[in-house]
Each structure stands twice: as C-alpha cells, then as structure tokens.
C-alpha cells in the first residue's frame, strides 16, 4: 500500500484533553510523516503579566499549567530576585525546593499513569494515580490546595511549613519508596511492556541536541543536562543527588529516567527536611529597580525559563516565558516517523507534553490554498448553518 492516509490526532487529543493537532500521514500502519500544529490554547499570558504588578504575576504564572504549578512561579520569582539581587532566607529556599520536588513526584506519577493508559494498560494508570494521591494530600496539608499552591513570593515564600507537618511529609515520601520499587520492577520485568516500549520512538543524542530538547526527554538520550546541577538555584548546590541519564533514547528509557528521578526527588526532600533550620521565610522586598533578570528552573519536563525586564515601576515591561514542552513537542517530528500508529500514541505522550505551558503565540505560514479560518470565521460559519437549518424548518 503506497496510498497515504491522514490520521488526525486532535484538535482535541483523545487522551490528554488538551488542544493540539497531530496530522499523521500513514501508509497502512506505518507513519511516514507528521505535522505538528499547536496554537489552539493561546491565552496571552505574557501580555497579561505586563498589566499586573509583580505579586499578582506570581499568581498568574502559577495558572499557566496545572501540573507544574510551582515551577512557573518559582522561575518567575527567581527572575525578579535576579533583577533585584535579593538575598533570600535559607529556610525559604528549602521550602521552595520541597514544594518543587513534591511537584516533580506528582507530575512524574501522573505521567506514569498516562503512559500506562496510552498503551492500554489501565491498571497502571489507576495505580499510579492512586499513589499520587498522598503527594497531593501533602500539598493540601502544606498549602491548603492540591494544585496551585501559591507558595512562591518575590523574596521568599508565602507560608511556612509547620514543624508538626514535617513527620507526615517524611512518612508519606518514605511510603512512596516501595511503590516506586513496585513500578520499577513491574516495568523492567514485564515482557509485554518491554515489547511495547523498547526501541519505540527513538531519539538519538544528535537529534536531541538539534532540537534542543530538555529534561527527561534529553536525559533519556544520554544528554546530561539538568539546571539544578548545571546552574544551581535555591540550595541545590548543598545537597547530594545525581542526574539520571539513560542511553537508548526510546520510550522505555524515558520511563526509566522518570521513575529513577522520583527516587532522587525523595532523596532531595529528605535532605531538605534535615537541613531546614528555623528562621525567617521572607526577605520583605519593597523597592524595584530598572533592569533585567532571568530565572531558570528544572521543571518536571525540563528547563522552565522566565525573563523579566523592569523600568523601576511595579509592573514588568516585558515578561518572556519559555516552557520545556515547546522544545520537546517538536522532537515528535523525528521520533514518530517510521513507527506504527500504535507507537505514535505512546511516542507523542512520552515527551510528557504540556500544551498549555507551551503556547505563547502561533505564526501560521500559508503554503497551500486551503482557507485558514480564525475564530470569527468559524462563528460566521456556524451562524450560516443555523440560518440554513431555520430556512429548512420554515419550509
């Protein structure tokens, strides 16, 4: 069969409930080409941020993404603190790290569940999400919310972790270790899972470097990058941990990277809990100066980047955000091609894409004669159809 068929995945993804569009060109079952269309979810967050004062922006960027809802504000406050050269109290650093690593745990568990669902293994899906619940409960205990924790603040953190919460945190993350052992064992031992994941959606080291992929996607292909180690922020330099890398670059390697990273997160949280001394949690920033600052945070999906330009007023003049998925989603262009449709589903999911993080703006280059419709065109089309139906009814 040399007949090319287009298989659409999107504009609403059947699994991820996020708007994106992958056009798979297939011959039989084999994917020969793929078009990646994003830009359905543009909310103008950067523009909005320029209308708000710095404290409000922290809340705004928290809402960029529901899953990495501490990474974005973390990167933002780091950017502002970089601009102001603020000395943040040590305790605040540790609290930020604990929240960020807990978030990595919950994000990776969420992905693990979704990955199970992608390959039709719903039991893994439900189990992973079940064990994610205690992590969300911890968040609720610490911040009052399961998501959108509102912990970050320019100059420190908004609320302290109470001393009576510490044993619970320790107990709950200790309980996660046997769970991770179970998942690790299940995935490395199960021949059927191996058959589905090994050698699927391979990204070579060169391809990763070409696309500038980040986070677990890059580390699974043997690219040893991690902002937490390469440019330590908060107190990461005072903590012993290691960056997980794998060589193969396939979906299996990406899964293993995420599972092993969860062990490291637990390790980091444990050390933070020990090292955290009593003290102030806020540097009480009052004045702003003109200038620029950048903040880089290793979000669960890779490096999250925020840039701030200030003119000394209480609002940023320019706020630029780059989420890791923006770099990672593009790698599907090479990793999906050559596989089957079944592989495409898990390969597209393996970069842990987060479209609401990614979408800043979309430029549409018109190369064919097909009409590209915007929102108003579609509304007009709907109205015309309604009129036609009404006419029919009247007759």
């Amino acid at each position, binding site marked *: 069969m040399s007949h090319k*068929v*287009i*298989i659409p995945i999107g504009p609403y993804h*059947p*699994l991820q409930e996020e708007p994106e569009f992958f056009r798979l060109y*297939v011959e*039989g*079952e084999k994917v020969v080409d793929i078009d990646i269309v994003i830009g359905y979810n543009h909310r103008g967050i950067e523009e909005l941020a320029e209308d708000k004062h710095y404290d409000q922006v922290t809340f705004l960027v928290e809402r960029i993404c529901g899953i990495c809802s501490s990474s974005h504000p973390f990167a933002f406050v780091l950017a502002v603190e970089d601009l102001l050269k603020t000395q943040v109290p040590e305790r605040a650093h540790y609290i930020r790290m604990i929240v960020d690593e807990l978030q990595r745990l919950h994000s990776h568990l969420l992905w693990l569940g979704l990955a*199970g*669902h*992608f*390959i*039709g*293994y*719903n*039991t*893994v*899906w*439900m*189990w992973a999400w*079940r064990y994610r619940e205690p992590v969300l409960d911890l968040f609720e205990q610490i911040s009052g919310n399961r998501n959108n924790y509102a912990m970050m603040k320019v100059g420190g953190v908004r609320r302290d972790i109470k001393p009576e919460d510490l044993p619970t945190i320790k107990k709950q993350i200790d309980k996660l270790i046997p769970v991770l052992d179970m998942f690790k064992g299940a995935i490395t031992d199960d021949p*059927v*899972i191996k*058959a*589905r994941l090994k050698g699927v959606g391979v990204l070579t080291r060169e391809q990763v470097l070409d696309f500038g992929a980040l986070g677990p996607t890059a580390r699974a292909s043997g690219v040893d990058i991690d902002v937490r180690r390469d440019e330590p922020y908060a107190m990461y330099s005072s903590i012993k941990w290691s960056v997980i890398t794998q060589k193969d670059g396939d979906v299996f390697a990406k899964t293993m990277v995420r599972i092993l990273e969860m062990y490291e997160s637990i390790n980091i949280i444990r050390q933070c809990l020990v090292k955290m001394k009593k003290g102030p949690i806020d540097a009480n920033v009052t004045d702003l100066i003109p200038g620029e600052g950048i903040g880089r945070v290793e979000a669960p999906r890779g490096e999250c980047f925020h840039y701030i330009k200030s003119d000394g007023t209480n609002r940023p003049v320019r706020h630029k955000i780059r989420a890791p998925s923006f770099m990672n989603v593009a790698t599907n262009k090479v990793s999906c091609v050559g596989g*089957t*449709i*079944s*592989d*495409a*589903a898990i390969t597209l999911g393996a970069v842990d894409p987060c479209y609401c993080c990614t979408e800043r703006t979309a430029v549409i280059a018109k190369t064919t004669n097909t009409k590209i419709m915007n929102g108003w065109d579609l509304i007009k089309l709907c109205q015309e159809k309604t009129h036609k139906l009404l006419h029919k009814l009247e007759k």
Partner: protein
Amino acid sequence: MFFKQLFYYLIFPGFLFASVVGLLAGWVDRKVSARIQYRVGPPWYQNFVDIIKLFGKEIITPPGRAFTFLFAPLMGIVSSTIVASFLGLVLLNSQSIFFADLIIVIYLLTVPAISLIIGASASANPLASIGVSREIKMVLGYELPFILSLAIVIIKAGSLRLADIINYQLLNGSLALSWSGAIGLIVAFLCIQAKLGFVPFDAPEADQEIMCGTLIEYSGLPLAIFRLTRFILLYTLPLFLIIIFLSGDIKLTSLGIKFLLILVAIILVKNTNPRLRIDQAIRFFWKILTPLAVLGVILAFLGK
C-alpha cells in the same frame, strides 16, 4: 413446534437469557476491573441502563451506505444469539440438534468479527479503515490456533457433535485434565480473549490510538446492538469453552462456578497486560499459540 423454536431462540436459552446473563457478566467485568484498579465500580444494572440509553439516541448513518451500515450489526447479533441458543439447548437436552453442529458454531462465532468489518468498512472513516485492517489481521491471527485447539477435542471425543463431546466428557472426565486438553484450553482461552476484543488483543478498537476504530461512526441503536453482541459473546464464549473442555460435570452450580472462574480469568488477563501492537499480536498467535496447538493435536493423536 414453530413457537417452541421461536421461544428457544428469542427467550430461553436464546436472545433474552443470553443478553441478561451477558450484561450481568459485563457488570462482573466492570466491577472486578474497578476493584483491581482501586475504583468503586458501577451498580449491577449499569450495563442495562447504558444499552437502554443508547436505544433512545439518534442514529447517524453515512449517506448512500445506510443499508450495509445498519445490516452489519444485525448480522452479528443474530449469529451470536444462534450460538447462545445452540449451546443452551445442547446443555439442556444433552443431544445435538443436527450433525456436526460444532462446525456451525465455529462459523457463527466468526460472524460477529466479520459483521464489525463490514459495518466499519461501510462507514468509510479513515480511523475505521485502520480498525478494519487490524480486525482482519486479528481474525487471521486467532482463527488458526482456535480451530486447532478445537481439533484436539474432535480427535479426543471422535465426534463433531457438541452432545457427543459432552457425553464423552461425562463418561471420561473433563478433557482439560489430559495434557492435550489442557494445552487446548490455554490456547482457546487466549483466542477467546481476542474474539472478545479485550486487552491485550484490542488493537482494532484501541481507543487511545484510533478512537474505537471500527465503532467510531456508530451511534444509537446500531451501536447498542454491537455492544449487546459483545455482551452476548461474553456469555457464549466462556460457555463454549466449558462445553468443549470442562464439561465433566454439567450440574447447574458447577457450570456457574466454572463460568465465573473463566470470566474472572479473562478479566485478570485483561487488567494485567498492556495492549499488543497488531504485528506483535499476530506474531504471538502464529509463532507461539499455533505451534502450541499443533503440539496439542499431536499429543491428542498419541492419546495423551
């Protein structure tokens, strides 16, 4: 006589009885799956409500192909109902309706898959066409080991009549207790998993990849009929397995226990495996199950 036949076919042990037991078996499937996955699961009448709800929904048909599109689900449900009434009558009377009814049953059990292929082809949806090509490959994959596993029984019992097979086992004990019978049971069990379209062999309907593939264009009543066919098969296929391999004892209680055990085994396999790619599934059927079934046939010839 005619009304009696009609009663057999429509009420008991045919359509109505098979549907009710099938829907309840479907509930067992959903409930056990839910408990395995730490969920609560639906109440017992959930499947009934689902099917009845679908009855009332709009039927959307592809223009110009409505007849084939609507005829296919009927074909599937009629054939699966005939099998259900055959098997029920054989168990009730211990005598076959006519010669070589096993062959008829094998044929009729393939028809639901064929009806899915015909109906989905009529919808002319690209995703459905992928589903169709997968379904055809899947049928080619599992029919060979399935028939070979039944050949074991035919050799052992020396007959093509279901009643003879049951009587043979009533005298000599269940076939599954012999070496060849046990192999046949395992092979047939896995083929049934594929016939039911359950994970790991649900590639034709992979909702995460091709959004229910073959069923994508179906709505309302035809969709309900396809679903009902699946539920009737969920009752018929385990029963068929019991008749063929495990009918050493056909008292009602032991039948019920065996049925539940097979059902739960199917559900466990479904919940502890990811979906196989279609090429992997066919490789599994042809390279692992077929040689295994051939081994069973050889053992059966040797009398083991």
